[in-house]
């Protein structure tokens, strides 16, 4: 999974408001998701960062944590996933 392009919604300090923006918990400012991340960036658990995630194409993949290897998608937030571990 190519995770070079990072967005604000990849950051643990980002508090999502809607599909375009959220609040930065460090600055308390409204921030556009697709603007550049800053030095405070802290990786948020997402499928695309997980050892169990294997991409099948740019937008889809599978989760190898479960026996059936269900499909998954890279942008899924995984803070509540018991199988998540950073790759």
């Amino acid at each position, binding site marked *: 999974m190519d995770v070079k392009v990072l967005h604000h919604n990849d950051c643990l300090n980002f508090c*999502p408001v*809607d*599909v*375009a923006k959220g609040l930065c*918990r460090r600055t308390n400012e409204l921030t*556009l998701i697709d603007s550049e991340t800053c030095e405070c960036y802290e990786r948020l658990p997402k499928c695309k960062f997980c050892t169990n995630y294997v991409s099948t194409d740019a937008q889809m993949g599978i989760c190898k944590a479960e026996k*059936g290897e269900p499909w998954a998608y890279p942008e899924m937030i995984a803070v509540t996933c018991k199988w998540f571990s950073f790759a």
Partner: protein
Amino acid sequence: MATPVLESRQKLLAEILMEKGIPIEYRYGKEFEDVADREIKNNPTPRADALKKLYLNSLSSVNVEFPYWYNREWRKWDGEIPIIRRAKALKAAFSHLTPVIWPGEKLVMGKTYYYRGSFPMPWLSNTFFMAKSDELYKAALERGSASSGEEAKFGAGGGNVTQDFGNVVSIAGKFGIRSEEVPALVKLAYEWKDKSVEELGHRYEMMVPEYDMKEKIMRSVICMFDSGFTLPQGREVINYYYPLAYGFDGLIEMCKERKDKVAGRADGDGLVGMDRLYYYEAVITVIEGLQNWILNYAKEARRLEKVTTDPTQAREYGEIAEMLEWIAHYQPRTFKEALQMTCLLHFAVLNEDAISGMSPGRLGQILYPWYEQDLAAGRTTREEVLELLQLHRVKFTCIDAFASTGVVGGVLSSNTFNNLSMGGLNKFGDPEGNELEKLILEAGQRLQSTQPTLSCLYDEKLPEDFLLKCAETVKTGTGYPAFMNNQVAIQFLLDQYAPEGMDISDARAIAIGGCLETSPCTWKPLVLNGKEYWIPGGAGQPTSVGVHFIANPKVLECVLFNGKDYRTGEQVYPPHNRKLETFEELWETFKEYYEMTVDCLATTNNIQHDIWRKNNMSVINSFLKPDCLEKGLHIGQLGYRYNATFNIESCGTITMVNSLVALKKLVYEDKKYTLDQMRDAMLNNFGFKTAKEIGSFSLLSQVKREGGEVYDKIHHDCLMAPKYGNDDPYADSILRLYEDWFCAMTRNYESLYGRKMYACQISVSTHGVQGSVTLATPDGRLAGTTYADASMSAYPGTDRNGPFALFNSATCWDHSKSQNSQLNLKIHPSAVKGPEGTRKLLELTRAYMRRGAFHIQYNVVDSKVLKDAQAHPENYRELLVRVAGFTQYWVELGKPIQDEVIARTEYEEI
């Protein structure tokens, strides 16, 4: 939509009517020259204000987290008993929701991790996404390469995502989804191919002999939507009692005990007796999911407590964690914990199904035990409670519903109708209107927002100061509370639910579900610190179900044109081939077509709901409502105490009545025109261009066609024919004729639960959409424009004899024969100015209620303000108006509805 550019000879309808002395924007009373603002303005607390502003700055946003986990778990359990499989899927979905706590919140949790979030449920309805998959993919691809600098545009449309921008794809001009989630959304939709309630329902409804006619009726928009897969639950009253009384751990224990008692035993019920075991197991499973969900929020609060540098904010996160860690297991100890519990239960039910109109019921009476004891013990203050109630308003205003797209826009105007009832009588017949309810009103004044909307269950016994507080709140321009007649509602409930055992005590528990749906409720004893209280809560099935929104004027149109819809060119009904030589023949034919409509819609919708109850039954809402836990049965097995809730809903009553009156007068009695002349005028839109031609469905924008003068005389006569709303027995007798028939006719139809249906008479926003597909009508209304709103509101500008004449017209029939009736009145702020004006408003309400009316609600606003808001929406993001049973932000309404609200008769004297 811009005002059409007029050629020199063209005239707007509004100008023509003005020349005739019947201005479309009619004002009753002396006109006020200056723009009048609303009189009372109170401010919310800074915390509540900041959170509300965040809402106003938020877009309606969708993600697929919940459906992803639901679907993933569902697929793992192929072959499992349906209710257990569904409970496991729900548990997985709740357990994986990402917890987000926004700074400043004291009440937490929500439907999704977006502030104004929702999500589709492909197991319910999926064909829209499959049909649009190419379009969505294309948009996602294009969006992926769009400039990240593009920003959402606010102002017109409010928080609606009306078009694609940046990496955001618009779904149906309302919801935004991140482009990177679109492939997952489409994949989810395809995984439910041939399995969703929509598709399965469709497969079996085609077996109904009347199916072909039903499809034609849907295409002609004589009916607005199928209720089985769009909004299978809603317009009902939730019940918070069990978790408030026992806590979640207590409920799990209760279910385990019940399981031991029923496992393997039919106990005399060979049909569903054995199902009780699976039901209790499913309830335990979903409660575990809810506990995981709550504790995930607690965990997040603990994390934030540690990393937050601001000590006050860090302490508040700690308090949130402590509160959630407790209520995940036990009965709430404080008012704040109890309020938080009701919030999370509300969101839980809304995440279980596509629901609109899940009403909290009489929240001020439900939470009174904690309020009373906290105050007495010095654990809280009125100021703290007042702020919490404002925060509760923000939380509820953030609720979004992702139903089918046509329903969200065309019917609901993006509203979610969480109606909070207050007042009425207690179990023993004593008046309510307690101190906490007055604080709820005060919170509604201070933090003006759409949700929860408020309803006063008006009863002669209610204290005067409470009623005056209601009237004062209306004057702030919120449109709430609406007034519903408690005694009329009780009569309706006893009539409809006596066969299921309703008595006067349960009838007194009445609350409003959705806009203004009288809903069956009950009382339960709650013990708090050794003291017993009887608290009310919902005990009935949804009332959003049945036959929903029949366009009365469109049925009449089909009668006049031998069953054909000229817009689609389809023969909707079998040709009646009658000459319609008498009014009686016309009326009989109308009734025949109407009954055909109801019959085919009732049978096909029954099948959809039957599929829903078999595969998509409610588990969460079911365990909350009496008597599911006692019986061990869910909603689909008649577990609820009251099940005769399916109804038949009409739209455009007054436009139809005025049209029948005009036909009776001009064609049958005065014989001034033949029916063919009337038909010709209707087809030619009385000489006006069509709404489609000019690109506007607004009644204010309609333009005369060149040469259209040949229809001037007939149009004039149609406009001048007697109209409802003027205490004119000629017109009102037709309303009476219709209501006596309609309310009785609906009882002839049966829901899938074997219970008789009943009449429901509200319009929500369908008078806009259904008006847009209807030809010109014999009352002089032009093609494509809105019908009269609600069911008792006069057509704009036609009620000319003052409010009391309107009241007399509206109460010429027995309102207790229907679940509701609806009257909207627009009043100029100057007419109700000062304390004297508040009392006048109450007396006006009282006068209507004493005539036996069911409902009235007010827009206290100057039409000049609305016009300016239409021209400059960017200056009016917070302007609220009452539409038809709900309050909405002006900027989130479609233009036809905005125009209709502007055009409503403005009362400058009362």
